[in-house]
């Protein structure tokens, strides 16, 4: 009897327990504040309104992709095809638009609205394919989306054949490169996506299912929740968000070509995970993703403001991601002893 009592971990104080439980939410905020303080003190050009808007603009496309990825990771799945899908969808919308004479692409110009509709439908089909592979066939999402990444890259390659396209539907050009009341339009779109996703996750039945499926998939199933539908739906949402980011992205860059979104895969995953959404599902949300996006945005932007070897930047980003992963997993482990006692 006494031996079982002794083998228990020492009781933590209530306040300490709360802080440890909130580690995943608190740590990214502290990191963000520390980085802002650091870059502000080392660079005179960092802490300005213009630069702040610049950071927002830089993270806006990542934000749209990260919104979809937040849904996926909350259910404890992963989508590695987001950047490739964004790229393919961006190229598709160009494929449906009349290109200048000198662009040597055998494309299929249609009316702008139809181009957007067709592209979104194709994007939806890509999401459905992923969802089918994961939920019906039972391929782990990690591998399924790896295959979809390659397929999307293949679609991109087939459509542009090494060329670059420059023209897009007017609406896309406006949303990707225009501005609304002096604010870059992509920022506004990203905000709309973030706010909508937050509302869906917090206030709708579907949002609750996403959290519950991520929290305990078996219990969700034994409660009569259609787990396969929920997982399929988040994968489709992931593909659609990537697709929108891809369409706006080509207009943002001013051109559509292969491999131009490659860095977005790591950035989007990093944003979600750095923000503190659990890789094991069920915890976190859009609030966390926003903090994660800001951490990455401030880091990328700040490193440009202090003179630093541009090659070292890549390494630093890798280290930051690793640190975030450690906190993410450790935060889960800290919770475990408090909930592991058999009831």
């Amino acid at each position, binding site marked *: 009897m006494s031996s079982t009592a002794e083998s228990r971990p020492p009781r933590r104080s209530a306040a300490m327990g709360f802080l440890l439980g909130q580690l995943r939410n608190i740590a990214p905020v502290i990191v963000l504040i520390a980085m802002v303080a650091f870059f502000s003190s080392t660079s005179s050009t960092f802490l300005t309104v213009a630069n702040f808007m610049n950071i927002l603009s830089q993270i806006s496309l990542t934000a749209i992709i990260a919104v979809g990825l937040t849904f996926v990771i909350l259910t404890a799945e992963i989508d590695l095809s987001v950047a490739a899908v964004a790229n393919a969808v961006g190229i598709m919308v160009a494929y449906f638009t009349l290109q200048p004479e000198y662009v040597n692409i055998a494309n299929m110009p249609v009316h702008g609205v139809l181009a957007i509709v067709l592209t979104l439908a194709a994007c939806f089909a890509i999401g459905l394919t992923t969802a089918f592979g994961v939920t019906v066939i039972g391929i782990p999402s990690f591998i399924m989306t790896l295959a979809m990444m390659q397929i999307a890259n293949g679609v991109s390659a087939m459509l542009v054949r090494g060329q670059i396209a420059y023209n897009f539907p007017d609406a896309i050009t406006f949303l990707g490169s225009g501005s609304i009341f002096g604010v870059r339009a992509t920022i506004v779109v990203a905000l709309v996506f973030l706010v909508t996703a937050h509302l869906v996750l917090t*206030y*709708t*039945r579907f949002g609750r299912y996403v959290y519950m499926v991520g*929290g305990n998939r078996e219990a969700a199933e*034994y409660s009569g929740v259609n787990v396969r539908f929920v997982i399929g739906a988040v994968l489709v949402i992931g593909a659609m968000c990537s697709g929108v980011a891809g369409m706006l992205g080509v207009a943002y860059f001013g051109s559509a070509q292969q491999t131009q979104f490659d860095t977005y895969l790591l950035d989007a995953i990093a944003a979600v995970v750095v923000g503190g959404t659990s890789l094991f599902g069920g915890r976190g949300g859009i609030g966390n993703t926003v903090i994660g996006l800001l951490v990455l945005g401030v880091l990328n932007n700040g490193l440009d403001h202090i003179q630093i070897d541009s090659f070292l930047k890549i390494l630093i980003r890798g280290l930051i991601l690793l640190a975030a992963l450690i906190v993410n997993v450790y935060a889960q482990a800290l919770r475990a002893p408090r*909930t592991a006692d058999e009831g």
Partner: protein
Amino acid sequence: MNLEQAGGGATAPLLELRGAGKSFGGVTALEGVDFDLRAGEIHGLVGENGAGKSTTMKIIAGVHHDYRGEMLVGGRPARFRSPGEALAAGVGMVHQELSVAPELTVAENVFLGAQPVTRLGLVDWSRMNREARGLITSLGLDLDPRARMGDLPVGLQQMVELARVLFSGARILILDEPTSALSPPEVERLFTVLRRLRGEGRGLIFISHFLDDVLAISDRVTVFRNGRRVTTEPVAGLTKDAVIGHMIGRRSAELHMGETAELRGDDARPVAMSLRAPGLDIDLRAGEITGVYGFMGCGQIELARALFGKGRIRGARIEIDGRPVSLRSTAAARAAGVAYVPENRRMMLFREAPVYKNVSIAILDRIHRVWLRPKAERRIAQTHIADLQIRPPQAGIAVGSLSGGNQQKVALAKWLTHLPKVLILSEPTRGMDVGAKEDVIRILRSLRDRGVAVLVLSTEPETILTLAERVLVMRKGAATLSLSRGRIDKSHLLAAA
């Protein structure tokens, strides 16, 4: 190792336990148990769940080491601190759940972790296959050592595991429920092998719920009840009824609650749900509690899952209100009015989520198609908390911090807002204190009175006898007994299972 040598002749037992006792957190699981195993003997071990069989075997096999009393192996005191130490001393165990590597070959499984190697440090395949074949042949079997383990039927996989334990030099063999997954010819083949091992002078302990098997193979039988050894008798002259009598204890004066039941099945009631499969035929009637009894692995879990749209039983046809249905998912089953509380609360509850979210998860769509209504969720949860007397009565606290009995009530509450047509429960009262048990029983009876068809599946006869008005006993996936009227007691259930 030299057990016989140390024992000095046929009279000294291979293994002896004297006054063995074991407690878990102040609860006595075993007290004053004397037990002995002779060389060249098959010793049957029987008793109900929790009677002390497994605790005794775990002491012998080195799983438990902080026990009271002493153990002699080959006449010498021994206290194993791990299963590895026990195996090194010649005590091997074949568990009910086989621990084989299905992707490896038969030979690799026999020599798992101890493959013979050549001088270059590579696996010596030819020697391994040759020796594996030798071992398997010595068991009287003809089996290709290069066959993939997963391709073999369960009975042969078990033989390979047996060969592995023998290869490690075990003189004392403990077999836990070795026949539960075997067909009758496979059981016969196992018995042939066991008799051969007995002939070699080894001692075998045969633990089983299947009394017919125990009586067929054992030389002596030891019966456990409530953590004590009741008797050890030679099998000659022992009948199944006598063994059951020892297992449940004869109380001439008065039978305790749950040891006997008066069945009152009424065939006039409408059938809410039915399942027809080869060897299994079950009708769940509105306003009745049907009990399914059977040992672990008898197929009742599969039955419950199939009725709730998770998994299928081969050749089964399911009808709800007389109409055939195909339950493709648990969501479809829920929509059709079927509710399920699985045997393990972990499979049913979100431990870190508050009580109200655990309750509302099954009815969110009825509260609102699109939006969440947290106030309504809390109000509904609060009603159930009051009705079911869940303690503490707070809708906002994490379910993981409640006691087991209260967690079970939350798992039940999930299905009570809109009454289901059919409520299926696996082990609804297992591991609960008396008070919580009575609460759950009262709740289930009131649901029955309100017209719900309740199905209770359990490995505990008391649970079935307390609740059921109609009883089905299952064995190896098929029904062996189906009763709807008359007085029954434990012995009926045990005899049929």
